[in-house]
């Protein structure tokens, strides 16, 4: 009875809130051009950043600080998960291993998926994707190994150090910008050195975007793998 009442109230509540949101949105016409800053980006993205993909340019360059933050958030999550699930001794406790079909499939797919992840992050300034999907794809390769094998484990130490170094690399890239161009996260490769101006649309362009996306890709890959690892392991009582 109480449960019923709660449901009814909840439905009423969300309807009211929904109506309110809709009212607010009614004056943000769908499909109309509302760009102000966005227009600037579209018009200047190629000359200012060397990226063809405007989204990428926004993500890594114009709004690079957001992305640095985003990288940090993921770092926090991986750190937090590892911290909370930390136990003196932890192991995989899965009982059944995948059949030979699955294990062999995972082995075969592993290098391909990893390479494809790299492909995604290095082409971030040209195609959709970039560091996060690239890293996530790489992590998927590791996930697959975990799913197939009951004994598989990533090399933790190496991963943690790699993760940290990649993050440091990102910040250092930004600090080099501060040192060379006078601004934190300044794209010194494109704007100071002018590398790749003749190359727009090809791989070696986009200023520091490929570098940062590579770092992010590595970082996200190791982080997500770490999260998977932590979630799949359980405490072993000694």
């Amino acid at each position, binding site marked *: 009875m109480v449960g019923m009442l709660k449901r009814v109230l909840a439905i009423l509540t969300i309807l009211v809130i929904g109506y309110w949101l809709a009212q607010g949105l009614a004056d943000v016409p769908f499909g109309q051009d509302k760009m102000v800053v966005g227009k600037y980006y579209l018009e200047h993205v190629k000359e200012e950043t060397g990226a063809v993909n405007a989204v990428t340019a926004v993500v890594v360059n114009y709004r690079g600080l957001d992305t640095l933050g985003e990288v940090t958030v993921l770092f926090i999550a991986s750190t937090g998960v590892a911290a909370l699930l930390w136990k003196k001794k932890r192991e995989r406790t899965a009982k059944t291993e995948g059949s030979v079909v*699955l294990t062999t499939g995972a082995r075969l797919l592993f290098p391909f998926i990893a390479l494809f992840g790299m492909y995604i992050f290095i*082409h971030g300034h040209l195609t*959709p994707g970039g560091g996060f*999907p690239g890293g*996530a794809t790489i992590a998927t390769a590791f996930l697959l190994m975990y*799913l*197939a094998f009951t004994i598989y484990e990533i090399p933790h130490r190496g991963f943690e150090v790699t993760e940290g170094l990649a993050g440091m690399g990102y910040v250092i890239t930004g600090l080099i910008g501060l040192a060379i161009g006078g601004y934190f996260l300044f794209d010194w490769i494109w704007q100071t050195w002018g590398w790749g101006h003749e190359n727009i649309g090809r791989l070696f362009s986009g200023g520091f975007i490929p570098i940062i996306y590579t770092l992010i890709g590595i970082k996200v890959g190791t982080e997500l793998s770490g999260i998977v690892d932590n979630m799949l392991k359980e405490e072993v009582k000694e």
Partner: protein
Amino acid sequence: MIGVNIYLLLIGVATLLSMYRVFRGPTTVDRLVAVDIMTTITVGLMVLFALYYRRIIFLDVALVYAILSFAGVIAFARYLEGGL
């Protein structure tokens, strides 16, 4: 681009049918099988859309999607058989 609408229609019907199984079940594996089929179909749809919008970049998206959904299905399957 003669028959695009026909293809989309067929795919749409297929998706609806698998959706039916997703909701109907009755077992979890049933739903999962249906989801698997649906993702497979979606990959095809994405490829088709890439051509429709003339943007090759959607093909990358399709492949990422295929990889992720494969991993997802395996994860669920392994979970159900107690292999995690």
